[in-house]
Every structure is written in C-alpha cells, then in structure tokens.
C-alpha cells in the first residue's frame, strides 16, 4: 500500500489525482450504483454489462500496464499480486485471481458494486443479473497484463453474484480474438486538454478546505475486506476513464440508435451530479471529520457553496471555481479542468455541444443544497430528502455556457433561479 500511495500524484494547480499516469477520482457507492444503473436503463442489462466490463478492462489495463512497470513487477505472479493489492486500495473489495494465459477465474469478496447494491436495495428489490462488471473487466485486464496478452484478448463474465443472493461472486475469463481497443487517454493528453487554472471567489478558503481534505483522503486505506471508508461513507478511488467511457459510449449509442431519447439519457447522466453532491458532499459536510477540520456548518449559502467546491477539488474532480454567486439568484462556476472534457476531446474529438454532464449538474445540485437544506439541524441524508430536493421542484435552470470539449478555454456553467 505504501508503494501505491507513493505513486499517487496530483496535476499541479488542477486538483486532479493520478495513480502513475492514470487519472482517478473519489466517488461514493451511491454515485457508482446510479451511474451504472443509468447504463443499464439505456442499454439493457446484458449490453450494459458488456459496455461496463470492456470499459473497466480498457481503463484497468492502462493503469496496470503503467503500475507494473513502475513497481518493477516482471513475472506473472508478481503482476497478479500487484493487481490483487491494487484492487482493495481502490476500495473495490477483494479479488482472488486464478487465471493464466488461456483465461481462468477470479473470485470476489465484498466487491464494491454488489456489496453496495445489497446494502442500498437488497431489502426492497430482488436482482437477477450480476452487477460486478468492473471487477470482471479488472480481472481480465490483470490477466492480460500479467501474461503479456494482446489488449482485448480476454472476455469476462460473472457466473455468480452476491446481488443474486448467491454466496460468492465468481468471474470467468476466456480467450477470444483480440477486439479493437481504444487508445488510452494518457496523462499528457489530459495535460494538453486542460486550461490555465484561475482563482475565483473565496479562493483562500476553498483552497484550504481542499488541501486539508486531500491530506486526509490519501491516508485512508482499505479495511481487511478491501472497502474504503471515510466520513462515514464508502468511497472508491475509481478510474475516470471508466466513468467517461461508459457514459459517453452509452450516450453515443443512444444518439445513433434512438436520437429522440438522447436528452433523457443525458439528463440521467447529469443526475449523477445531483447524487454525488447530495450523498458525498452532504455526508462530508455533516461528518465529524468536517467539524474537526473546518468547524460546524452554519448553513449560509456562500459557506455551503464554497465548502462543496472545496470538497469536489479534494475528490479529484478538477479545479472548480466560483466566478459569481448571488444567493437566491445565480451561481456561475467555472473550471480549468474536470475529469470529463479533456477525456472527451482526446477520445472522441471536438464536440458540437457541451459534454460535462457531471460538472454542470453538480453545480446545480450545490446551489440546491446551499438553499434548501437546513444544515444546522443535521437532517438524515436519505432517499426521502433526496427526492424532495431533486425530484420535486428543482428551482434552478442550468446552462453550460462554455466547454473545453467544444474547444473553449474552460468549462463554465450558469445556474439561475427559475
């Protein structure tokens, strides 16, 4: 774990985190489940599993190829061991790799997605389709890297899954003719895709919050199950490339097959910004860790907005700034970097429209949290409160007025009262 911490670096001034050359961000289990559910809603369970596991395999391969080289892991056994250690550091649970050149198996315990799904939904819904596509793709990538197999030459599936009330998660890997795989979006490509960082309102306060939280976050390790807990929530150090590839490939698939449905799926991926702001920012703001590091929250609009922006920087979402804020009227947020636009630009080329679904909608959610939550009363951050804030009467318009994926110098979103 100390080796992995040593490989974790930041892009100076941009509030982006990398493990080696691969970008990662912190997201909680609520966001992860929502994001992946959106893919299933758009594509159906089987196709969604394929999209997710392939994206996981491609992103994990980029990560593992780099990490094994940097750590000097040369033999298959060393490389598999490194992958096995990396998985829980990411908060993804524990994975036993029982694979060789021709494929094989992997066994998962406390896999993040299935564990989180059972906690959140298990008492209400019975699920019949496996959910651990990320673990499956990761296992495939780990095996490819361990044995120097061509990219995309393994396929993965989940034969049994904890969410289906089976006792364990079991993944199967088999050889196939190598499929075409996208060129990884490198750290250098991301550097080329970001803008010049700037300072906005309350920069000192936001910067201090971000720095304090970053120092705390990097010290958090996984427990013996491979789960990472901080601020009372379960978080993952997850691959930005996974989120981006799954979201954009899904949106593009809908744009091609069912263009009239594009706004719906875009809105859903945007809603992930609401989910993150509510559950992740909300729990952090009400946590003992926050109280100790920053102080109890008074609940004033500017205070909450600044706090959330500081949190988002610490989570590796990029250098977000507050350009303008008029309580009850307007919030303008800008960023020289986020984890969406540089990836989009590099992977898909210039877009004709803004593509920062998460950034733009997180800004809207932050404005809602700043105005509609009585923070000093420490409300329960449960589904009922989420529904009341975000499903009934969200009183803010959102317009992304600039986007680096479109060729602009920065990304910017304007949130205005309806």
């Amino acid at each position, binding site marked *: 774990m100390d080796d992995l911490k040593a490989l974790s670096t930041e892009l100076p001034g941009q509030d982006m985190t990398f493990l080696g050359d691969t970008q990662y961000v912190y997201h909680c289990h609520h966001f992860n489940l929502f994001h992946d559910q959106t893919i299933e809603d758009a594509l159906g369970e089987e196709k969604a599993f394929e999209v997710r596991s392939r994206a996981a395999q491609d992103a994990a391969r980029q990560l593992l190829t780099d990490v094994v080289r940097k750590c000097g892991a040369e033999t298959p056994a060393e490389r598999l061991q490194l992958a096995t250690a990396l998985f829980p550091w990411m908060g993804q649970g524990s994975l036993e790799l029982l694979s060789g050149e021709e494929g094989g198996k992997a066994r998962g315990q406390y896999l993040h997605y299935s564990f989180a799904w059972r*906690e959140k939904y298990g008492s209400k819904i019975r699920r019949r389709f496996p959910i651990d596509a990320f673990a499956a793709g990761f296992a495939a990538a780990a095996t490819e890297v361990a044995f120097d197999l061509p990219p995309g030459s393994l396929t993965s599936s989940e034969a049994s899954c904890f969410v289906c009330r089976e006792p364990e998660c079991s993944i199967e890997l088999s050889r196939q003719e190598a499929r075409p795989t996208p060129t990884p979006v490198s750290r250098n490509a991301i550097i080329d895709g970001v803008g010049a960082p700037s300072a906005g309102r309350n920069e000192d306060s936001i910067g201090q919050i971000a720095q304090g939280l970053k120092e705390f976050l990097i010290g958090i390790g996984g427990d*013996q199950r491979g789960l990472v807990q901080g601020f009372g929530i379960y978080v993952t150090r997850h691959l930005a490339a996974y989120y981006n590839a799954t979201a954009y490939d899904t949106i593009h698939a809908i744009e091609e097959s069912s263009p009239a449905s594009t706004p719906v799926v875009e809105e859903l991926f945007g809603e992930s910004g609401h989910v993150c702001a509510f559950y992740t920012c909300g*729990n952090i703001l009400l*946590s003992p860790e926050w109280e*100790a590091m920053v102080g109890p929250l008074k609940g004033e609009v500017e205070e909450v907005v600044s706090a959330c922006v500081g949190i988002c920087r610490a989570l590796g979402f990029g250098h977000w700034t507050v350009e303008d804020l008029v309580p009850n009227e307007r919030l303008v947020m800008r960023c020289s970097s986020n984890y969406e636009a540089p990836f989009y630009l590099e992977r898909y080329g210039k877009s004709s429209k803004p593509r920062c679904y998460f950034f733009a909608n997180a800004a809207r959610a932050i404005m809602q949290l700043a105005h509609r939550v009585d923070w000093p009363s*420490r409300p329960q951050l449960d589904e009922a409160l989420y529904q009341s804030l975000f499903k009934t009467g969200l009183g803010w318009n959102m317009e992304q007025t600039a986007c680096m994926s479109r060729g602009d110098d920065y990304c910017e979103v304007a949130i205005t009262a309806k």
Partner: protein
Amino acid sequence: MKGMTPLELDVSCCNRANWRTDLPTEIDAGTVEGRLVEKGYQSRCAHPALRVLRHPEGHELAWVTTSGRVQIRVDIEVPKDERRRRAEALYQDLASCLEGSSP
C-alpha cells in the same frame, strides 16, 4: 458516565448505521484513546482535533475532541435491525474507557 449524552441516531446515508453521543470536552483524549486501543481498537487518524478508531469488527468511533461529538459507525454488514444494539455495545465500550479520565 457523567456528562456522556444518551445514544441517538446520527446522520447517515446507510440506514441506522451512524449514532451519536457527546462527551465532556475536559476529558483526556489521549488516555481514552489509549484505553480503547487496549480493548483492540485501531487508531486511524492523527489530526489534532479528531480521533478515528476502528473496532476489530469494522465499526468506527469518530470523535471530535474539541467539541466532544462522537459518531459511532456501525459496520454495514450488521443487519439493519441489529445496528442499534451494536451501537449500544460500542457506546458502553466508550463509557467504560472514560472512568477517571477527567484531569
């Protein structure tokens, strides 16, 4: 323990996982932390105003020493209808470590 508030439900996004009590601020945090470590808790945070201690079963105590606020985090593997009982056991652990810890 005198001054330790009764256990109550705290903020949580996981059903009944987090509970709260407040401790007197004048107690010696180092002494209490040491006693919890002797009971098997693992100290996980070195911030001057914060102690986070993990129970061997995965539960946590997150304690703001400057205000006395303690969040008792019951591990989410514990079934929901047993979480209060587990929180009460952790509360008693904490209470037993407070005896004689005021300067």
